[in-house]
């Protein structure tokens, strides 16, 4: 195994990791606002890619417009999910909420397969297929798009939480919901915001990833679960942790696949998850001593 090969694995791991990071961010947002682990998060990613591909094929929209449509529709799906499924059950036990979000994820997946068929749909790369060679390893322009989208989204999220009223209110709700309500923050509005943002971020991840892996109705489940691992790894509910967790997970996965065994690649994320639970249950950036 040469250094160039390791470098190649690292680069491709970073690309996948960027996607995991965005999905993990979605998990953390919803978790902070509601305490719910939204297993339908992966379906937002699927919707992002599928709607973009379908809108381009069916209506002949240009890529940027199709992407915009995809983000808008996915955001609405996120809001509907909150209103129709999560809110009526918000006082139920965690396991009931897990089943509801998994049910929602199965439902969305099924609907997608009926609307768009089970075929995988390719999406053209945003700026060509010509690979770029960096120190002997190749990276596609699309990978740079994935990393760029991760970075930009992370920065926007940071700005939203740091500088806007909504962002500050959401943070307040996450830290102490009753106190936030006493300050006049409407909790249910904040929950809606968090679902909307989580869905939009998921859709963005799906759109930039689709040219790499193709969009298909069933890609959401595994991506969602790995994003969840990334969220736990970074510290559930911690934004920066989610980004870091995603990137670390992506790289570990690529290195594990390249250096140890490509067959067990899908297990690597979950081995990391269990190891993390045993060593440091609060995650890389989670507060030490916090329970969950």
């Amino acid at each position, binding site marked *: 195994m040469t250094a160039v090969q390791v470098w190649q694995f690292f680069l491709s791991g970073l690309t996948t990791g960027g996607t995991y990071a965005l999905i993990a961010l979605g998990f953390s947002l919803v978790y902070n606002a509601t305490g719910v682990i939204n297993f339908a998060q992966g379906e937002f990613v699927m919707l992002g890619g599928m709607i973009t591909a379908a809108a381009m094929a069916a209506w002949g929209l240009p890529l940027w417009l199709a992407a915009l449509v995809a983000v808008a529709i996915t955001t609405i799906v996120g809001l509907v999910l909150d209103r129709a499924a999560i809110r009526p059950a918000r006082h139920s036990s965690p396991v009931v909420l897990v089943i509801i979000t998994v049910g929602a994820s199965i439902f969305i997946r099924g609907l997608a397969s009926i609307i768009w068929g089970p*075929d*995988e749909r390719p999406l053209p790369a945003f700026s060509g297929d010509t690979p770029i060679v960096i120190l002997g390893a190749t990276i596609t322009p699309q990978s740079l798009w994935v990393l760029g989208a991760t970075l930009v989204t992370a920065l926007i999220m940071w700005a939203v939480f740091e500088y806007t009223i909504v962002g500050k209110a959401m943070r307040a709700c996450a830290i102490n919901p009753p106190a936030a309500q006493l300050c006049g923050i409407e909790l249910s509005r904040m929950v809606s915001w968090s679902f909307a943002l989580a869905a939009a971020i998921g859709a963005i991840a799906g759109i930039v990833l689709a040219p790499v*892996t*193709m969009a298909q109705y069933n890609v959401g489940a595994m991506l969602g679960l790995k994003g969840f691992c990334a969220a736990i790894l970074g510290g559930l509910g911690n934004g920066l942790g989610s980004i870091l967790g995603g990137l670390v997970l992506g790289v570990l996965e690529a290195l594990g*696949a390249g250096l140890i065994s*490509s*067959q067990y690649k899908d297990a690597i994320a979950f081995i990391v998850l269990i190891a993390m639970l045993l060593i440091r249950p609060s995650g890389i950036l989670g507060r030490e001593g916090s329970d969950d």
Partner: protein
Amino acid sequence: MRTLLKHRVLLLFAALAAVAVLAGCPTQEPEDQPGIDPTPPTQQPSGEPIKIGGIFDLSGPASALGQPEAETAEMLQEQINAEGGIDGRPIEILIRDTKGDEVEGLTVTRELIEKENVVAIVGPSRSGTTMAIIEMIETSEIPLISCAAARAITDPVKKWVFNTPQSDEDAVARIFEYCNANGIAKVAAITASDGFGIEGLKQMEKLAPASKIEIVAKEEFSDTDKDMTAQLTKIKNSGAAAMVCWGIGPSPSLAAKQANELHLGMPVIMSHGVANRRFIEGAGAGAEGVILPAGKLLVANQLPDDDPRKELLLQYASAFEEKYGKSADTFGGHAWDAIMLVVNAVKTGGAEPAQIRDAIENTTDFHGIGGTFNFSAERHYGLSPDAFVMITIKNGEWTLLEGAADGAAAEDGGPTG
């Protein structure tokens, strides 16, 4: 109070039992002896449908195969019934989704045989599912015509099992022939970890020594793999002169696409498992120059006019395109062959499972989409090796490779057919 409660419990169970009796009765009658002796065919009231099971991967990783197969089945059912069915009886093809899963395949097979009393089954789409249900087919004594390619399905011969696609053995032979002709001595194999991929690798390992070809790398991917950098990087450094990829569904297109992105620097050869437009769309620029063995359907319009099956192929292709708005592919062709073989068998032999089986086994010189079929008691795989032509992808279109047409002409033994 207590006795009252007890009564209530007893009453409840009495009610439950009554419901069960009521629910059980109507279903019980037609299904007393599953499979062997279905009641309808003996007296033949006109309009009594002939039930044929169709089990395909409508969803899951092999939906690229299952979809056109199920669509072809639907199309044929309409066509045949519009022409008055078989001897005045309509055919009914009960389609089930095997979901790319062997256990689901087994379950729907049982359901079709024991609950629906089908007289024959076409499908499944994949070799793995076919291998899984063979035992049940043999014990239920219902004829099965599989749409999957693995040589192991019909070798050794099983009494009730047939298949229509060109076998993986013939495909490998054809590929190695191509390699020999083009001076390729070292190949890297990258195969799916499903039934089709595993059987494909076995055939490569079996045939390589005779063709003086060395397999210098063996890599695998699962159908959930989205990133094959790891496997392809190893192949790139293996010293192979060509990469042979064996799989179905989206994974091989990702392999071709990423091979291109990684500057693999060697020709990519695929199996006949990707003979579908979705492969070209999925692989994008990576599809250019990919070489594969496939049935003639994909290049039907490029065949010489004296090819005896050209008209049939074009007919099927245009009917399919008209109905579904997409181009026909060889997988739909496998289903066409399987269903028409059953229909043909019912016409000549009768509608009992045993009669259908015997009639299929005695079918010779049957012109289908995949080639010309000749079955016998020793041979439940009806095609010959020259049913394949070598195809390459040029400007996003299937293109007949130079020189491959010779094999095509030989296939049907001249114009007499």
